[in-house]
């Protein structure tokens, strides 16, 4: 049997070094693993959010396309057919009594069809720009006499130079805000302003309705408001809501050009 002459302390030291390396590498590995998992989870989450946004954008775009198509079909096909019908009836019906009975009815249908088609796809927006379309929108609400909508464009031609998609998004947002005000706010006056900013425009919207408690309604907005948020995101714009109970509802949207 070989006599043990080994330095036992040296051997214990080696064993300790080995154990230390094992323990240290385990801790290092665990921490690195946690960090990697966290970064990769964040990347996956980001991808999910991006995918959600893309999906929403695609939905909004296809919705616009469909609205445009239905609006055009209503205006061109149904509108034209009704005009033809009106003409034919004017020629074929001889008695004034019958004419007076059917003419207002057909006129009413034609007006309704035109209003629906214009709401679905605002023709003024593409033809004459956002400024014109906004005035037209304000006027369409003012006709009723129940509410006073004022629109002021302080950006000069800047608003008309926005891309088609952005202009349509702003138009739809204002349309949605107006509809919300009429539905919920019990307001008498609405002021819409376009102001110039350094690299874009600021859309200001304010009504004098009953307002809302933002703290109580936090994240409890309905579909309409979610649509507005989605459109704002789509434009890469930012927004700020100013509202409190009894003090009306206001929102400013900063759109980059």
């Amino acid at each position, binding site marked *: 049997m*070989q006599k043990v002459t*080994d330095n036992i302390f040296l*051997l214990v030291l*080696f064993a300790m070094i080995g154990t230390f390396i*094992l323990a240290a590498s385990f801790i290092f*590995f665990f921490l*690195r*693993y946690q960090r990697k998992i966290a970064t990769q989870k964040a990347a*996956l989450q980001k991808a999910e959010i991006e*995918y959600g946004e893309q999906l929403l954008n695609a939905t909004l775009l296809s919705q616009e396309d469909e609205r445009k198509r239905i609006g055009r079909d209503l205006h061109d096909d149904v509108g034209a057919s009704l005009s033809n019908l009106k003409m034919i009836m004017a020629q074929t019906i001889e008695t004034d009594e019958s004419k007076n009975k059917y003419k207002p009815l057909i006129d009413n249908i034609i007006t309704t069809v035109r209003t629906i088609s214009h709401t679905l796809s605002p023709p003024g927006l593409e033809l004459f720009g956002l400024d014109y379309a906004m005035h037209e929108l304000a006027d369409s609400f003012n006709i009723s006499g129940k509410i006073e909508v004022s629109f002021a464009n302080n950006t000069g031609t800047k608003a008309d130079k926005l891309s088609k998609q952005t202009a349509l998004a702003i138009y739809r947002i204002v349309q949605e805000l107006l509809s919300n005000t009429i539905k919920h706010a019990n307001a008498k006056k609405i002021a819409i302003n376009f102001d110039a900013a350094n690299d874009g425009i600021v859309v200001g919207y304010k009504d004098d309705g009953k307002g809302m408690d933002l703290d109580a309604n936090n994240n409890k907005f309905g579909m309409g408001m979610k649509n507005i948020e989605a459109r704002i995101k789509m434009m890469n714009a930012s927004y700020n809501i100013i509202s409190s109970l009894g003090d009306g509802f206001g929102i400013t949207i900063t759109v980059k050009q």
Partner: protein
Amino acid sequence: MGVIVPLSILLPIFFAILKWRYLTAEAKIILWYLLVSAVINFVATIIGKFFHMNNLPLVHILTVLEIIILSAFYKKLLSKKAKPIFYVLLPLVFALLCIANAIFLQSIFTYCSYTRSIAAIIIMIFAINYFVRHFFVLLRRIYAFYLFQFYNCSK
């Protein structure tokens, strides 16, 4: 058992030689390791059993060869990621250490417990280093695959 266990090394050697064409470069290095271990074990058994001589010098030789071969193995395994100097210098320094140990501390006729311990630590570092690198590469691949799937689905 004293025969079966040392002989069991012949099994992987036999199959490795049989499937030589399909062996990767790393597997070929491991085959060399097995061959060296088998030969040293065989010679040590003969010297010990039949000539009744001290066979411990062979352990000194095996310790050096083991680190040289395993360095080459891990260098190949990590290919571009491994720093060549580290994998060449380390076995060289270790060989010198073994010689110094044999001359000054533990004679070749005693068990080289110091260098065996250091060799064990070195092999442990090699293994941990490979595991950590390989695991994170694998993890990245898995996540890249999921992200790829995700983007593919979204199109």
